């Protein structure tokens, strides 16, 4: 660029000659130069703006065009891309710990009708009512002809039924594919699995949603398409579960009970190997939820998890082990057991008005199941420490197990905790819990005092919980429970080779308004085996049992729940791969002291 001089000599001289101010020329030139600069920078800015506008225009028009084509074009599946085996649309399978199928899916079809396309509604209604006896011909015909254009006839068809419907040959009949949940083992583990139903239904597919149990608790995990290929592995063992259910069913019937529950739990990992409740149902054809009457009469009621009962004398071991843990007593300490005991206006009696007193060792309090002895131990401990201990065993909170029912089954306990509650709670009256709560607490004792969290999912690493009691206390507690079986109330529970250690519990059922019903009891037997190295905890609960082989009906756990539990151990322990052991002559010093 040629630079114009601000003061050109020729013009300056010329202006001087004319007598004009030469500075005016300089100012004029300066003004021209500034205008030139301004014009140039304006042009450059304009070009930049136009360029940017073009960029934006093309970007937006590309996006707009893409949106337009996506909206206008037909959706097509990518044909050439290989579809990964890892993404599947169906619900994930549920397996047992050895990989046997508990729940899987099967493709079936649903039947629907487009009434516009029906050629002969009367004939179709007739033929359908022949194939499906539960459909009413007149009702079908009314639904075909009352003006609606679309209706569902059946949610699931078997292949044979589908062929029969095909043979009707009417163009108004349509089939929609359906993924159906199948439980190949029938009623096995029904209360754990729960069952499913169809959620939102479309012509091409329908949602399968969990109704209860683990199907509902793990619904999001099971429905997640990214995890549909990986089955949910539970801690149940199909073989053991089948044996436990068979024995529980026979036992409930033999003991004339209304129902029963059994829980078998691994004490090291907290895995529930078997969870059974009787009566049971078929999850393939889940009955409707009861709308009237007592919900606990329905087969859907899971007594092992939802049954909140007073668990009776099974609680005594908690008072005894806490007192030992606090150093208040040893198993040999003699405590006052002079029955009946008077506390204020309350009279604490023993079973059938026995008197095991005046003095009884702590181990004998447990073996003979003395209410008065336990009451005196509880008074040594005191209410606050007792509550904290029972809470640390998980007896005051709903069980964290992977069943949707467990969340709603919160153990019951009194609001206030005066000393009389301390006394009654020590022998399991006035506080209620589910058999699963009890099994968890016993597992904590059997696990050497380290808290166990129950789970229905397979895990291999041992439980890492907080320590609830000293290891020596836990061993002493198990040894005391062993005495209950060898010479106490649970003598029918001795299974040779498996050193069963347990505690019986009999609690009368409470009336709606308050007070107890004499001849309606809940019998519980909670046990640990083998006693020298506890591996499993078994809790058996029978609802309103009565044993009638003797001259008068017997309603104590020792006569009802204990033989059932012994039979379960006899059947299940070999299946769990446990070899019967020759027992050591003495477990510890307890026997020697007794002698």
């Amino acid at each position, binding site marked *: 660029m040629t630079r114009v001089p601000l003061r050109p000599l020729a013009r300056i001289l010329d202006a001087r000659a004319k007598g004009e101010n030469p500075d005016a020329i300089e100012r004029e030139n300066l003004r021209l130069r500034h205008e030139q600069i301004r014009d140039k920078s304006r042009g450059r800015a304009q070009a930049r703006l136009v360029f940017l506008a073009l960029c934006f225009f093309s970007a937006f028009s590309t996006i707009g065009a893409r949106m337009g084509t996506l909206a206008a074009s037909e959706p097509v599946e990518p044909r050439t891309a290989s579809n990964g085996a890892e993404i599947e649309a169906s619900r994930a399978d549920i397996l047992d710990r050895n990989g046997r199928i508990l729940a899987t899916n099967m493709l079936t079809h649903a039947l629907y009708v487009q009434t516009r396309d029906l050629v002969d509604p009367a004939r179709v209604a007739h033929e359908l009512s022949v194939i499906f006896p539960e459909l009413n011909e007149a009702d079908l015909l009314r639904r075909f002809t009352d003006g609606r254009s679309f209706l569902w006839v059946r949610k699931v068809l078997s292949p044979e039924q589908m062929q029969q419907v095909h043979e009707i040959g009417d163009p108004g009949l349509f089939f929609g594919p359906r993924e159906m949940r199948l439980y*190949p083992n*029938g009623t*096995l583990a029904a209360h754990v699995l729960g069952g499913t139903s169809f959620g939102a239904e479309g012509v091409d597919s329908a949602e399968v949603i969990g109704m209860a149990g683990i199907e509902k608790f793990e619904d999001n995990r099971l429905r997640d398409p990214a995890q549909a290929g990986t089955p949910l592995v539970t801690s149940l063992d199909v073989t053991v579960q089948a044996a436990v259910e068979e024995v529980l069913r026979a036992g409930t019937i033999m003991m004339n009970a209304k129902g029963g529950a059994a829980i078998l739990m691994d004490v090291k990992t907290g895995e529930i190997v078997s969870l059974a409740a009787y009566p049971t149902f078929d999850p393939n054809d889940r009955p409707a939820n009861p709308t009237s009457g007592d919900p606990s009469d329905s087969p859907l009621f899971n007594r092992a998890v939802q049954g909140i009962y007073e668990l009776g004398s099974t609680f005594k071991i908690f008072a005894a082990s806490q007192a030992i843990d606090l150093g208040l007593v040893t198993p040999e300490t003699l405590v006052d057991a002079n029955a009946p005991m008077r506390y204020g206006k309350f009279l604490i009696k023993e079973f059938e008005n026995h008197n095991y007193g005046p003095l009884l060792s702590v181990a004998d309090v447990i073996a003979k199941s003395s209410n008065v002895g336990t009451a005196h131990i509880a008074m040594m401990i005191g209410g606050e420490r007792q509550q904290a201990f029972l809470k640390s065993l998980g007896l005051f909170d709903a069980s964290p197990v992977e069943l949707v029912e467990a969340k709603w089954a919160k153990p019951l306990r009194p609001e206030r905790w005066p000393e009389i509650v301390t006394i009654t709670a020590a022998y399991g009256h006035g506080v209620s819990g589910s058999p699963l709560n009890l099994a968890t607490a016993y597992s904590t004792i059997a696990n050497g005092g380290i808290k166990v969290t129950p789970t229905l999912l397979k895990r291999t690493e041992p439980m890492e919980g907080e320590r609830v009691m000293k290891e020596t206390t836990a061993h002493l507690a198990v040894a005391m429970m062993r005495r209950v079986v060898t010479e106490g109330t649970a003598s029918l529970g001795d299974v040779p080779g498996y050193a069963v250690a347990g505690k019986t519990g009999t609690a009368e059922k409470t009336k709606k308004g308050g007070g107890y019903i004499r001849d309606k009891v809940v019998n519980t037997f909670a046990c640990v085996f083998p006693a020298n190295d506890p591996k499993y905890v078994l809790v058996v609960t029978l609802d309103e049992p009565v044993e009638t082989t003797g001259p008068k009906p017997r309603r104590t756990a020792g006569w009802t729940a204990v033989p059932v539990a012994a039979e379960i151990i006899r059947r299940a322990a*070999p299946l769990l791969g446990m070899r*019967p052991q020759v027992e050591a002559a003495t477990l510890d010093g307890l026997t020697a002291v007794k002698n």
Partner: protein
Amino acid sequence: MRPVLYVFSFLAVLALGFWAYRENYATQAAQREVEALQDEIAGIRESLTIQRAEWAYLNRPDRLRDLATINFDRLGLLPMQPSQFGTAEQVAFPPPPVNNVVLGLTIEQPQSISGTLATEGAQTP
């Protein structure tokens, strides 16, 4: 020179057109094949699911228990009992192999030997 170039480029266009036509149809055929294979995979996967379900159904504990009861005469199966556990010493082991060096024999060609093997505890010659 120029007409030759024209002819050559015309022929090249023809050849390229023919090649593109063939490639187009080959692609479509491959896509159809992929589709058919994917249908087949889906079908096989579905029947696999059904067969696994059927296997589980046929192996359900109820049915196995009933079958064991029905065929008790032939199989004699009962629920497992604790008393059925044994120790390794109770299992009859096969007798030790006959040692050639002890017998002082060398075998050079195939020999046929018949007789009964001595059981454990019995004296071997």
